[in-house]
Each structure stands twice: as C-alpha cells, then as structure tokens.
C-alpha cells in the first residue's frame, strides 16, 4: 500500500512539477524588478543596548515581541528575533559581557543573547512556583533585570484578587528563588500602574486617588502611601494619564531617581533619599526625561539629565496647518537640554536642536540618548520613538540620520488603488464628457481641448527642463533617501516631483497602496518604488482603534480615480462610529465625523449618486440606518428593495438578515427578514464565526465548464451566497477530559437565509481561511486527528442546463438546488493566510496565494484543488485537462513568489487587478510588507520583459542591408556580363 502510494505520488509529482514549471517562476535576473520587501520590527518598547564600536548598532525590544539589532548608521536591520506569544516583559544588557537578557511570556522564557550576532547564549525559565504555563498571556507581572545581569526581580499580583502582591528574586547561577512575604496593595492598582525603580524599590502610582505607594525590598516589605499633594502638586480639573517613568541608568543605586509624566504638561523628578521620597525638581512643558552618563565641557564624566522640549510656537502652527493640508510639510522643532545632576547647571555647549517635517502632530512616546566618543570628543545621538510608531535618530546638530515607520508592522488593512489620469489624458476625458451638445460646440470643444493639450505638453517640457537645470531644489535630501531604499527607511517627505509623477501608466501597473495601521496612522505607498508617498496620523482614529480594537477594518473605496474631475475618496468606519474620509492619492483628510452609537455592520452601496460616489450604509446597534454621506439617502431609497445586510454574532452563533424595504426618511430602521442560530461551542468565548462573501463586483468570464464530451456544466453563480464558518469546541465528545474542537461550514443565501450546503469537520481547529470566488469555495483548517493542515474545495454547479442566463434572483430560484462537488486535500505545511488572484476580466486562470509559516508565499494553480480531480482518470477527464487526484498538494520551490525574501508572520494578503488581463498585483503584510505582481497564465498580452528589441532590430537592419547589397552585386554582375 505504501509503495503504491509512493509510486503514484512520484508520478503525479513529476507531472505537477512539469505543470508548474510551465506556468510560474521568475528568472534570476528579475529579482527585485517588480517586487519590494520592507522589514519592520514594531513600535519600540524597550531600548536595550547600544554598541558604538566597529559597526555601531542598537538593540531594541518592541511591542510586536521582537528583539532586533539595528545599524546606527542607516537604520537597517542587523538581526531580528520574533518571540512566541505572551508579553515581552523586560530586556536589559548585562554590564560585564554585553549580553542581552530578555524576559518574555511572563518569565517562561528568560534568554541571554549575544548582542553582536544575535545568537542565543543560554536559556532559562522561572520556576513553576512563580509562573505556570497557564499564566503565559496574563498581565499579573512586573519584571526587573539587575544591571549585573545575574538576577531577576519579579512582582506578581495574585490573581485571586489584585490586592495581594509578592516579590521574587531569581538568581541564574543557582536557579534559586527568594520569596518575599505577601503584601496587601490598594485595590485600584494593577501591574500597569507599577514599576521597579531599581532592584530595591517598587513604586505604584494610583491615577484616580493621585497617590504614590512605594515599597523597599531590602528590609521590611511594606507599602508606604503618599499623596501627590505632599509634594505640593495640585491638579486643576481631572488629571489624566499620569505615567511613571523609570530610568535604566542611575547615578546612585541607593538613592535612585524616577519621574512622573504629567501627560505632556511636564515631568516631576522624584528621588529616594534615605528610603524616603523627595521631590527634586518640576520640569514644566518637558516632553521626555532621560538619564545618561555625560562628559561635560567643564567637568569630568558625570551623569546628566537630558530633557526634550518641543517648541510651543511650532505646535500652534501645526494645529492651524492640519486643517488645510498642503504639500509642503510643517516643521516641528525639538530641543534637547542637558543638566548636570549635581548642581543643576545646564550645559549649553551640548544642547541639541533638530526639526522634523510632518503634516500631522508628533507625539513623542520615548526618547533615548546614545553617547558617542568620537576622537576624544563627547557627542551623542537622540533616538526618538513617537506614538504613531515612527522611530528616528537625530544628531544634536539637527541632522536626522534615518527614520523608520514601524507603524507598517501593524497594518490593519490595505487597498491597492488606481492612480489618477495625467493632465493630458484628463483633458481628453473632459471633451468626451460634453457629448450631449450640438456638433458645432463639440467641434469647438475638441479644437480648444487639443490646443490645451498642446499647451500642457509644452509647459511640461519647459518644467522638466527647468528641473533638470536646478535639481538641487527637488532632491534636497535625496542623498539620505538613497542610502536606505532597500529597507524601510523611506522618508516621510514626498517632494513635488514625486506627487506629479503619480499618474496612471499605460498598463495600470503603477498604483498606490493605501493602508490603515493600528496606531491610527494612514499610509500611501507607491507600488513601483515602495516609497511612502504620504502618511497621516490622526489622534481621534488612534484613540478609537485603541479603545475598540477591531479584528479587521475595511477601507471603503467610495469613489475611484476613474471619475474625473471628481477626486477619489476612501473612508474608514470604526466600531465606535468614527468616520474618517480621505483622499487616497494625496492623503488629505477630507471629512471626520463621529456617530454617537456603536456600529453593528457596514456596507458599501453598489449604486452611485450623481457625483459617482458610493454611499456607506451603517447599521448601528439599534438597527438604525445611517448613511455616509447623508446625501446618498436617495440612492438607497430608490433601490431599497434590492439591499440586504447580514449581521453575525460570534458568541451565540446568531445570524440575522435585514432588509430595507420599509426604509424612508422618517423610518430609518432596518427590518429583520430572517434569522438563524447556528450551533457553536458551549463556552462561547472560544468560538469564532467568519462570514465570507464574494468580492464586490467580481467578473465571471465563463458561465460554465466544457466537459470532455463537449457538453457544458453550468456554474451556480449566486452573488448572494455567503460562506459561514464556525470554529468551536464540542462538549459532548471528549477524550481524556480534552474537549474536541470542530469546524462547521455553511453555504447560505444571504437574501433568504436558506442553507444551501453544510458540512462539519470533527476534531479540527482553526484558523480557517476561506477563498470564495465564482462558483467555488476553498478553505483550510487543521485536522487534529491526523495532525495536518487540510484544504477543502467545493464547487457548485447548476447542471447541464441553465435556468436563466441573464440574471440571478435569490427569491425566484428557491427551487434550484445546486449540486456540489467536494474534495479534501492535504497541505504539507501550515497556512498563515490564503487568497486568490484577481484579474480585470476574469479570463486568466485563478491561482491561490498561500502564505506559509516558513516565510514564503506559494502560488498554487487552482486546478490542483479542483474537486473534480478524478481518482481513476478516464479519456474524458484527460480531454478536459483534469489532473488525477492525489491527496497531497505539492509545494514546489518554483512556486514561491517571494523567493528568498522571507516574510515573518504574514497577517493578510490583498490582490488587485492591473489594466493588463494577465497580471495581478499582490501585497502581503504582517511584520514585513511585500509587494509583487503575478501572472497566473503567463504574460500573454504584452511582450515579455526579456524580449530582445536589439536582436529584432538588428536582424531587420541586416536583412535590409543585405538586400541592398545583393541588389548592388546583381547590378554589377549584369554589367560585367554585358562587357564580356
């Protein structure tokens, strides 16, 4: 049996390999020709170490559970490690041998790393008495790593009630644990409000009662509580977001410093003196404080306090400007002042000053100082991490060495959009618009527009030549940009030239990727260069996304760029009703609106209004309909009978379909048409519901499939069909007390709520990825029994006759039950995301794009997951071109479209058509971003990129030359003959 399988396996593998070779695969010289990858690490959480020797690097820990080493020179990655799930608690460099110690997953993993190469030195684990496997993701812990690196101090809030706290000291060498006694703590305090000042002091700040509690670990472990008013600090109104700030470097271990951040209003520096708190100084308007050793100009090496001030004038300026965004960005001025910590004298000679260009507010999250000793002269660099995830390094003289946009490591969703027409094409469009007028005016319009075209052409030439004469104006900082084009260093700035070149190309390959990130920052990325064209940070969006983190956030494309002179418009709607509308080409925020209700479901209308704008239908939690913009009301009113919306509730498995046939200006309520409760697991928190529709406006090229006997099998093309998958656990079946999980899949008509097909996979778990297009559904899950990933494929057919070829109605075709082909396949590795390719007219073959945990993106022809693949192939099957059924799907390395540009933790892939039927654009995002184009049926509509123009031209020239030569020779011959 085994042998037989193997034989079949080999045979089919050969066949498959041959098939794939034909269809896919790049040439080696095409590397980086159409694709780009940018690697990120995430927003900075721990600044761990700096090494300013031979090749200066810094080591960072981030919110994405990444430990990374970055070159100080250009901001590119040296190495990067992604940790397992669980919080990244602490990281610190050992003083003696320079190893980096990290604590993550609440102490389940304590690792020591070589900072230079990124190799692991040793690995430990805190004993089970402190942390158990179940507490992996909990937030009961605070950690502190001693500067010597031999001990870890841990504070654990006992989960029974948050009122009890215990301290542990873990020593690496002996693996010993010292426990303190359990202390009582105020009820309101959680680990978030507390921090270790150093190994001896633990401080908590109660934001509500404005009290500081501290405990000294050296002697009797007991909390002392002080009110902030004890320091003479009075707050007017409600104080918000006070934050504890601790320092890694302390001038005196016995009497350490810490600070309280007054949420942008300034900092209060406090010090322990003889085990008592003492207010040292209040720094109003100071954004950040940092302590680092300094060699002052007029005294020996000492510790200095660095403080960051951003100029209030520029901030005011910024508020004004953000209302009417211009192409030229505003300058944000920053100042770094240094105080000697002994006599509180400011050292003016070391003062730093720099400016940052940005059109949105810059809120600094943290600042770090990297001291440099260059030829005996003390200098330093300023590393700044902002709240919107950008990280940049500046010198005190104001030169920004590099800037990383780490927000791109946490993209929520993305869209690939067409660029607008060039000025020249736009004027042609304009003349075509006036077709309703009489012939004479049309003629005049035509002539005038052509004159305008000529004029624009000449002005363009003149402008270009002017630019060529004075290139310095445009590429003011181009040299910095060029250094790090390979990675992420794409600077924010987009010069006027770039904006002007953002026009549509002939084949629609030059597009713009619009992304929304978790931090409320929006980006526009050029697909050709991979550079950031624009970026906008919106604080309202940030707060909305932070309070109600969505799993997925759609970008609604309300109007594309196809409707000149109307500009394109994209809109996002957050869960708590924030509507943000922006121009995807310029990044300008056009409208911001807050609905005072929770959003239940959103939908883009199919019909456009007279400005070609598609409205967004928002269903709030009371089933009231809101439309954005309000004016699209009439559109919905006109077509209200054809609109339906589905709402799924994850916890209960309740599906509801709503209709709008009673919708009017007075009655804005949607009425329920049907409802359905699908079985989920008992412990409702575990279940996961997913609803997948077909793509909005998908083109289906062929209505049926031609079989081997030349008859046609018609596809069941129900546009209202939705796929509902539920991941749950089954309480009734269990083995060894372990509950089995299951996955169910339903095909439901969204208009009527009728179930067309359902299937269950027992002992299977998610994540489930569904690809739903035309008449097929492909989904993947993990089979726990066989311990393998499986891909299941469904195809729906009407049969050999078609009921109504011109239109489909869910209401009138109740009688038809499609017949369904269903087949399972084994996928020999895991899946982190799965989508299908998309082309303009749907003529080109469909391929699946599957992101693998190993970092590759596999392009798999959909023919491999065809459920009609026969086990015993006949002549007819061969005629039809079906591949014989083999359970295991291949992963040929030729099908990996990102070759050795591996991607870490891919979150999603999006695809978009280009104007060429053969080509599909692909953008994958996760910790890295990757863009490329794929041609599922090869590039049949344009010449190949390796087409040898020179050879063809050369051959033609030679042919012409030879014919003239032979003419001359022939003439000479006849002449010679004549003279004989």
């Amino acid at each position, binding site marked *: 049996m*085994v042998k037989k399988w193997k034989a079949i396996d080999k045979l089919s593998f050969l066949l498959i390999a041959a098939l794939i*070779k034909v269809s896919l*695969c*790049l*040439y*080696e*010289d095409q590397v980086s020709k159409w694709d780009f990858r940018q690697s990120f690490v995430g927003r900075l959480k721990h600044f761990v170490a700096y090494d300013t020797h031979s090749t200066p690097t810094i080591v960072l820990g981030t919110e994405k559970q990444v430990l990374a080493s970055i070159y100080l020179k250009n901001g590119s990655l040296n*190495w*990067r*490690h*992604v940790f*397992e*799930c669980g919080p990244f608690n602490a990281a610190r460099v050992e003083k003696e041998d320079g190893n980096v110690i990290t604590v993550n997953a609440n102490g389940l993993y304590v690792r020591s790393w*070589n900072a230079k*190469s*990124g*190799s*692991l*030195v*040793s*690995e*430990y*684990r805190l*004993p*089970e008495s402190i942390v*158990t*496997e179940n507490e992996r993701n909990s937030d009961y812990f605070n950690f502190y790593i001693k500067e010597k690196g031999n001990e870890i101090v841990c504070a654990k809030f006992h989960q029974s009630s948050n009122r009890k706290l215990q301290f542990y000291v873990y020593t690496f060498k002996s*693996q010993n644990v010292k426990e303190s006694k359990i202390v009582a703590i105020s009820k309101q305090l959680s680990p978030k409000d507390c921090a270790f000042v150093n190994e001896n002091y633990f401080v908590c700040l109660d934001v509500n009662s404005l009290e500081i509690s501290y405990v000294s670990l050296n002697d009797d472990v007991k909390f002392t509580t002080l009110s902030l008013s004890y320091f003479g600090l009075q707050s007017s109104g409600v104080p918000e977001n006070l934050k504890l700030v601790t320092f890694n470097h302390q001038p005196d271990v016995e009497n350490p410093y810490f600070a309280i951040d007054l949420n942008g209003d300034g900092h209060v520096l406090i010090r322990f003196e003889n085990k008592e708190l003492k207010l040292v100084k209040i720094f109003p308007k100071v954004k950040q404080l940092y302590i680092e050793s300094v060699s002052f100009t007029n005294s020996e090496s000492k510790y200095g306090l660095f403080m960051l001030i951003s100029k209030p004038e520029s901030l005011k300026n910024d508020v004004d400007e953000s209302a009417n965004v211009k192409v030229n960005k505003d300058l944000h001025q920053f100042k770094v002042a240094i105080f000697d910590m002994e006599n509180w004298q400011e050292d003016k000679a070391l003062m730093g000053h720099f400016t940052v260009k940005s059109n949105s507010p810059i809120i600094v999250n943290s600042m770090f100082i990297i001291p440099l000793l260059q030829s005996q002269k003390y200098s330093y660099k300023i590393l700044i991490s902002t709240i919107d995830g950008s990280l940049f390094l500046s010198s005190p003289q104001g030169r920004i060495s590099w800037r990383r946009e780490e927000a791109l490591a946490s993209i929520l969703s993305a869209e690939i959009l067409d660029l607008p027409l060039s000025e020249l094409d736009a004027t042609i469009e304009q003349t075509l618009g006036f077709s309703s007028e009489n012939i004479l005016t049309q003629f005049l319009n035509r002539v005038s527009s052509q004159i305008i075209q000529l004029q624009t052409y000449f002005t363009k030439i003149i402008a270009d030549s002017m630019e060529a004469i004075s290139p310095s104006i445009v590429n003011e900082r181009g040299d910095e940009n060029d250094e790090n084009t390979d990675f992420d260093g794409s600077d924010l700035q987009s010069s006027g030239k770039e904006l002007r070149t953002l026009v549509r190309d002939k084949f629609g390959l030059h597009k713009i990727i619009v992304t929304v990130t978790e931090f409320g920052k929006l980006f526009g990325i050029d697909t050709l260069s991979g550079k950031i064209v624009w970026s906008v940070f919106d604080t309202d969006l940030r707060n909305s996304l932070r309070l109600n983190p969505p799993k997925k956030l759609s970008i609604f494309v309300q109007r594309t760029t196809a409707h000149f002179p109307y500009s394109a418009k994209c809109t996002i709607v957050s869960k708590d009703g924030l509507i943000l509308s922006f121009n995807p080409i310029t990044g300008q925020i056009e409208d911001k609106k807050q609905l005072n209700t929770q959003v239940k479901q959103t939908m883009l209308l199919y019909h456009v209004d007279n400005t070609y704008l598609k409205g967004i239908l928002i269903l709030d939690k009371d089933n009231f309909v809101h439309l954005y913009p309000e004016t699209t009301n009439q559109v919905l009113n006109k077509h209200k009978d054809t609109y339906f919306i589905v709402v799924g509730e994850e916890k209960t498995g309740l599906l509801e379909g709503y209709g709008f046939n009673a919708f009017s200006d007075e009655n804005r309520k949607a009425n329920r048409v049907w409802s359905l409760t699908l079985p989920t697991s008992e412990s409702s928190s575990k279940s996961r519901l997913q609803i997948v529709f077909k793509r909005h406006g998908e083109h289906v090229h062929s209505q049926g499939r031609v079989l081997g006997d030349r008859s046609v099998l018609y596809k069941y093309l129900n546009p209202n069909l939705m796929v509902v998958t539920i991941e749950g656990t089954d309480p009734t079946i269990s083995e060894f007390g372990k509950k089995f999980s299951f996955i169910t899949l339903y095909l439901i008509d969204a208009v009527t709520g009728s179930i067309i097909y359902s299937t269950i996979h027992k002992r299977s778990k998610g994540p489930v990825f569904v690809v739903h297009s035309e008449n097929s559904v492909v989904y993947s899950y993990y089979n726990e029994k*066989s*311990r*393998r*990933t499986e891909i299941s494929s469904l195809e729906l057919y009407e049969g050999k006759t078609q009921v109504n070829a011109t239109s489909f109605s869910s209401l009138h075709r109740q009688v038809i039950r499609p017949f369904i082909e269903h087949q399972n396949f*084994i996928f*020999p*590795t*895991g899946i*982190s995301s799965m989508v299908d390719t998309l082309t303009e007219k749907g003529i080109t073959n469909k391929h699946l794009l599957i992101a693998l*945990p*190993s*970092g590759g993106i596999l392009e798999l022809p959909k023919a491999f997951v065809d459920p009609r693949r026969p086990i015993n192939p006949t002549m007819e099957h061969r005629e039809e071109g079906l591949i014989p059924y083999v*359970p*295991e799907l291949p992963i040929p390395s*030729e099908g*990996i479209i990102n*070759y*050795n*540009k*591996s991607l870490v*933790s891919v979150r999603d892939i999006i695809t978009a058509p280009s104007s060429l039927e053969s080509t599909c654009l692909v953008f994958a995002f996760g910790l890295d971003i990757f863009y490329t184009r794929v041609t599922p049926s090869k590039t049949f509509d344009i010449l190949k990129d*390796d087409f*040898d123009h020179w*050879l063809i031209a050369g051959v033609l020239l030679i042919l012409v030359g030879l014919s003239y030569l032979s*003419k001359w020779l*022939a003439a000479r*011959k*006849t*002449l010679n*003959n*004549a003279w*004989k």
Partner: protein
Amino acid sequence: MTAIRYALLWFLLLVSNNAIRAQNVDIESNGGNNHTPSAANGGHTIEGKVSTSTGDSNMPQQWLASTRIIVNYGEYFGFLKRDGSFEISNLQPGSYLVEVTHPDYFYEPIRVDINSKGKIRARKVNYIQTSSVQQLPYPLKFKPKGPFKYFQIRETWKLTDFLFNPMVLMMILPLLLLLVLPKMINAADPETQREMQNMQMPKYDMPELSEMMTSFFTGGSSSKSSQQLALKNKASKKKQ
C-alpha cells in the same frame, strides 16, 4: 523462521533505542543544574542541532540571522546558539512538528512526540499515513537537503543554436545549391562544357532565376536593356 528472526531483530532494535534514550535522560537529569531546565521544572524540552551546508562548527553570522526554528507552525520558536544547537522548552506532552527554515536551503521537518512520562521520540513526517513511525535520531539533527531552486534558467542566445535551427538549415541548403553547384560545374574542364553545349538544351524557354531576381531588384527599364545586352552577349558568344 524468518518472521521470528525479524521479530528478534526488531526487539533488539527497540531495546537499543530505549537504552540510548535512557542515557539521554540520564545526561539531562545530571546536567539539569547547568542550563537545561529539566522536566521537573514544568514542561519538556526538545533539543537539536542545525548544520550548515558547509558543515562549519561555528555558524556564520548570516546563517544565524536568517534561520528560524518553528514548532507547530509558529506556536513555539527555537533559537540558535553559536554552534547551531537549539532548545525548545516549556512543552507539554504531545506531538510537535519541528521545522527549520532558511531562505536559501531546504531542511526536512521532523515530528517529535513527547509522552506523558517525558520520553521523547523523533520520527519522519508522513502526512498520508500519519501513524507510521520511521524513527530518527534524537537529539534532532537538521542537515540542509540542498538549495532551493526559486528561479528558471534563462535561455541564452548561442550561434550554434541558431545555425542548427531547422528553419535556418532549410534556408542555407538551397543557397548552397544555388551558389556553389554552378561554380563547381563551371570549374570543370572544357570537355564537359562542350558536352553541356552539345546537349542542346532549349535555352530561352525558361527565364533564368538570377535574371529574374536582378530584374526584380533593379527595376523595369534598366533591366530590359541589361537583358538585351545579355542576350546579345550570348549570341555573340555563340557565333564565336
């Protein structure tokens, strides 16, 4: 008889395997004080070693940075030490799939089973017959199976390819016949020439190919005159 022998062999194998494993466990429990967190400390540990394509004892920096060890498709990770060894700790009893990924080289994944007593067994991954056991050595050893072939090889233009193209051959042969053969005949001795003349070929019934070509290229009027010239020439030749 043979069946018994096989059974015996199998038994021996099992025993020896157990012995090896027992040794490993012993080593672990002895060295538990040093680095390896033992099973008593909550969770088990999978150990292994990754080697490079060149077999260096010290991994090059590039290799270290780009190799990842992924367990169960990203549930756990392993990290390489300088010498290429790794440990995956905090594992509960169960079955784990250990994959080593490198962007340029392929490593075969290994399935590792940990039973409730903490015994560890490594076996080959078989997706079709999931229960088949093909034991592999433990601690795990990962060797690169070879580089990935991501790219197609581009066809290069070669002169020989061009020349041996059947179309080109079809063009060249008639050309040879046209150009070389008449010359060979011309070069022959006057006797054959005379013979040729004696054959009394009907001379002017068919227009000569070369003349047709010349007339085609040189154009109407001049060709006529040249033809006439040629005719005269031949006529005079005859007279001679």
